[in-house]
């Protein structure tokens, strides 16, 4: 006998469906950092068709050396960091990744705190992979 609770159209309650799904990458630049304190830079923006009801944002990239996050582990904003080597490999800078949503625009941002070195000169850019899913409520 069919289990009717498994049907999508068992709609006694509201649900969420995917409205848009984005995957891609943005880049942490190799620009030297000389300013002390917290630094936050915008890596890119994505414009959604509509203001999301639920926006799932997850990121992936090279973890810091002391992280136990696996290479295929994806993290939510503030739940992980991306590594960028600098000063000819002498420094490992950790960038936290954030997503700010204002209306229907998603801003992917990197934030770090430079406190120990006068200048951080990245050896290369660092790639941040993202996946965004805009879920819309239906009732």
């Amino acid at each position, binding site marked *: 006998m069919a289990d009717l609770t498994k049907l999508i159209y068992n709609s006694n309650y509201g*649900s969420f469906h*995917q409205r848009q799904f984005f995957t891609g990458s943005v880049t942490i630049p190799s620009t030297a950092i000389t300013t002390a304190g917290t630094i936050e830079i915008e890596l890119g923006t994505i414009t959604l068709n509509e203001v999301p009801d639920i926006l799932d944002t*997850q990121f992936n990239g090279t973890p810091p050396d002391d992280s136990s*996050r696996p290479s295929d582990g994806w993290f*939510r*904003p503030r739940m992980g960091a991306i590594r960028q080597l600098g000063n000819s490999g002498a420094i490992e800078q950790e960038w*936290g990744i954030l997503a700010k949503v204002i209306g229907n625009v998603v801003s992917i941002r990197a934030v770090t705190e430079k406190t120990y070195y006068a200048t951080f000169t990245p050896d290369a850019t660092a790639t941040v992979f993202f996946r965004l899913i805009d879920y819309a409520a239906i009732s």
Partner: protein
Amino acid sequence: MADLSKLSFFSGVNYLKRDDSLTGDGSTTFTGVPGEVAGITIDHNLGYIPFVSVGAELSEPGILWSNNTTPLLRVSTDDTVRFLYWTTPTQLIIRHINSIDNPVTGIRWVNWVIYLDYGT
């Protein structure tokens, strides 16, 4: 003309669907060591990165903090217990990290819900 994307039974998009077998809780135990890491790993084996919701007790037992409440950067900056979590195509990995400055002892609970991306 009907806008089919508004129908509940529009099957061209995926849905979030709760599965009770992917909902649970567990505990970690801190021994009072500054920065100690405890962990829970849940095998979901869905084959994709799912939408998840995670909550955890931090320094104070009985108060459940949800997802994005913990300090941003390194453990060494923390004055409270915090938690992190990552998702892979097969697992949800939760890390509970004791405070550096004010380490705690005892059990802390973690709750999670993994939603099916129905239609994949």
